[in-house]
């Protein structure tokens, strides 16, 4: 899809472009509010990644413009500050999601993909190896036999399965599954993931969830 990237730090912008182009997207870079507005007027975008603090204004201004001109475009705000109010404001003004800098690139890519899928309705049934997941009814089964998982465990497994192929950080799991916004320094998340693993293993599904050292977890495609 065609993505507008509003980011004033040129190094960051270039890195974002490389990553997004590799994922098969077309990328237009805008270093400031003025050129972003110009780009919005001259062409249509499917998505926009907007930095908040810019030399000539705020990313929220571009967000309003975008909502007016391209209501269907998916928007992700990038906030440098860990400001509680900033995040709330972004979502209030119609952003679809936000990321706190510095974020994992995979996180941005996954969010863009997930958001893009949202309107069409994401698949609720996933099958991977012998595991079947029904995310609408919160049921997990291995070879037709129901796997007893707590809601938290189900949330962890379904997020990893839904975004299979992506590395999901511990912080992201905490945010999605528990709703807490912090990066743990302890093994608090690992213990939960290990419980899911043990339950899967007891049903003969081993090594489904892989640990990526220093990064997070992933489920192979």
């Amino acid at each position, binding site marked *: 899809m065609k993505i507008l990237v509003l980011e004033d730090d040129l190094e960051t912008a270039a890195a974002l472009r490389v990553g997004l182009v590799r994922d098969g997207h077309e990328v237009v870079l805008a270093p400031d509010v003025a050129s972003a507005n110009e780009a919005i007027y001259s062409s249509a975008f499917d998505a926009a990644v907007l930095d908040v603090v810019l030399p000539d204004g705020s990313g929220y201004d571009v967000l309003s413009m975008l909502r007016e001109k391209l209501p269907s475009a998916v928007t992700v705000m990038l906030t440098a*500050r*860990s*400001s*509680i*109010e900033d995040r709330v404001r972004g979502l209030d003004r119609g952003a679809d999601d936000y990321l*706190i*800098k*510095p974020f*994992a690139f995979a996180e941005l890519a996954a969010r863009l993909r997930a958001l893009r899928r949202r309107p069409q309705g994401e698949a609720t049934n996933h099958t991977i190896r012998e595991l079947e997941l029904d995310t609408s009814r919160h049921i997990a089964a291995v070879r037709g036999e129901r796997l007893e998982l707590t809601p*938290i465990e189900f949330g962890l497994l379904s997020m990893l399965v839904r975004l299979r192929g992506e590395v999901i950080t511990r912080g992201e799991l905490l945010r999605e599954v*528990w709703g*807490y*916004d*912090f*990066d*743990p*320094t*302890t*093994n*608090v998340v690992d*213990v*939960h993931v*290990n*419980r899911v693993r043990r339950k899967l293993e007891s049903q003969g599904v081993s090594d489904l969830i892989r640990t990526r*050292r*220093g*990064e997070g977890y992933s489920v192979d495609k």
Partner: protein
Amino acid sequence: MTNRFVRSLRRTDGRAAIVIATTVLTVSVLQSWFLYRYVAVEALEQADAWVDHSLHTIHREVSNQIDPTEALAEFGRSLDDGQAAARVTTRSGAVSTWGAWPKPEQTQPAVTGEDTRSLFDADLLKPGILLYASTSLADGGLLEAVVSLDPFAEEAFEVRDALMFFTVLLSASGLFAAISATFWAFKPLRDATDSLNHVGPHDLSNRLVDRGTLDPIDRHARELNQKLEDIEASFARIRAFGNEIAHEFRTPLNRIAMVADVASGGTEEEARAALSSIRATAGDLSRLVDSLLMISEVENHGATIAHQPIDVAERLSKVVALYEPAFSDRDSPLRIELSPANITGVPELFDRVIINLLENVLQHTPARTEIEVDCRIDWGRVLITVDDSGDGVPGSTPDEMNSIFDRFARGPGEHGQGHGLGLALSRTIARFHGGDLTVDTSRLGGARFVWWSPLRNDPPYTR
């Protein structure tokens, strides 16, 4: 700035001296004025009585057909310079005069009988003026008499001259006293200001002169010194904080540089490992920045964050559920006892404190440590406690133990694990919620963290 203060202070000295001197001058002039008036009126009244007496004596003599010359001379002699005169005007208009009758402008009517003199009559007391009185004779004629004021005035003038001399003397000494008194009185303040001149951003160690008395200036100096003490301390803290931040950043930045250097000459696999290490270090640095920003946000902009009702037991049990498996994995029994309690605050920040406390316990206690999380209402406050049976917090006094809430505080032998900001942030949040977070020794043997918060709708959070 300070120099301007000194200059205006010197002007203040001058103003104070002028005020004091003017007051002394005014008081002495007014006092002299009244004194002289009093003496002058006294003299006039004596003269009035003398005129009255002489008029009656002459009246008696004239009525008895006696020549009053003798009596007039008698009065004149009594008046030293003999300035007394009398005249009789008969009904037919014949005038007989004894002594030298003065010109009309030289005379002033005497006040006799029931009437009295006022202080303003004092102006009548001038050299060469004669007091005049008259009475009707039995045959219809008019008897008039004048007596010189001079002998009576003389005494009053002497008093006046003395008063003038004293007024000048008093004013001069008043001025001198005023100048020296203000100079002396303001000296400590001037000294204090001079010492303030040496206090600046580079040297906060100077203090005002304090002679240790109960003098208001000394009391102000002490207060100001205390403020300077606080400012110096917080300056020192800020400087130390800046240093600590710089040190916190140096290690990971050096690591990034080193890892990148080594990887640039290595295999692809090594480069991949280096990138992952760099990513992890960057994540660590951003955690540090996030914590610092969150502390400063809560400290500086806390008032603008909207408060919501918080069901303490509900949120606590949610966070504890997150940590329960981690504790049970290392055979740490986790007991939890929650009574219903509500506070007002920011739920996200509330969770953060509990998370930080449990992260802290998980990180700093060995396996099989008992943990107890408890919340209850106590004396109108909500008390949230986290107890453990670990090694406890280093330090023997409460102050020493509570230093773990300092920013960048780390226990002995702790390296790399976190930045020592979690507890600092937690305390900041606790205080922002109107309460406090402290540490003590637990009855389980380890550390006991106590977070108290005002009950919901308790001031100051009714807004």
